């Protein structure tokens, strides 16, 4: 697959649109308590903003803001955030993923569960974003090899 596009319209529009898609992805993740949305949808939006740059830009530029090597490790970090939140509440003496026992001082049970849901949504969003980008990178690598 040929990297980059020679059309100035595509280059300009992808550069303008990508930060706004990323901002909207953040909004979908962090506003998921009040409106439709959540980790999966927001993570897909963040991945789409990164993949847009990878499709449009040439090869020197398209990995500047998210390197290929970080894909799988950051996905593992996202899964570990989710699992760690569950495991902390298990260590504090409750059930697995029982957010009411998270060690945040000075909060009532409902607030603790609110922030527990927020933490796991961030973990889900991070994992979905990085894994989608990693799948795209690996498929593209394979395609480059066959064309040579």
């Amino acid at each position, binding site marked *: 697959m040929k990297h980059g596009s020679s059309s100035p319209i595509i280059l300009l529009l992808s550069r303008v649109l990508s930060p706004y898609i990323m901002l909207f992805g953040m909004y979908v993740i962090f506003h998921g308590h009040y409106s439709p949305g959540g980790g999966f949808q927001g993570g897909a939006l963040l991945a789409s903003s990164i993949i847009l740059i990878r499709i449009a830009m040439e090869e020197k530029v398209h990995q500047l803001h998210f390197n290929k090597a970080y894909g799988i490790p950051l996905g593992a970090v996202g899964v570990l955030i989710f699992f760690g939140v569950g495991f902390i509440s298990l260590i504090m003496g409750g059930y697995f993923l029982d957010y009411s026992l998270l060690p945040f001082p000075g909060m009532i049970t409902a607030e603790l*569960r609110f922030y527990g849901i927020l933490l796991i949504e961030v973990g889900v969003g991070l994992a979905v974003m990085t894994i989608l980008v990693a799948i795209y990178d690996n498929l593209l690598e394979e395609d480059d090899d066959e064309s040579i």
Partner: protein
Amino acid sequence: MKYLTFMSIGVFALLLIYAAYGLPYRGDPNALVNQEISLTGTPVASSYYIENAMKDANTPNMVTTVLGDYRAFDTLGEEVVIFAAGIICFLLLNRERKREARKQ
């Protein structure tokens, strides 16, 4: 063979349209899915969610509370499935690449 394909698609479409007439209307209080007692005589969980989701987790969006709190273990499973898909893609494609590089 082509006619057989189109005929079977048409028959299936008619079957689906016929089956759609048997569905309950949206928000029908007498429909089986909206009852507080299920067919086997046990109380269903959705009325508990509707009454207590705001009180339990301070979150207006009930769906987020169900996905992230009451059914968080299921969401953990979904995330692990996505991670497994990514890591399998990584392993298969990258190993293939290394083998080709060794051959040359």
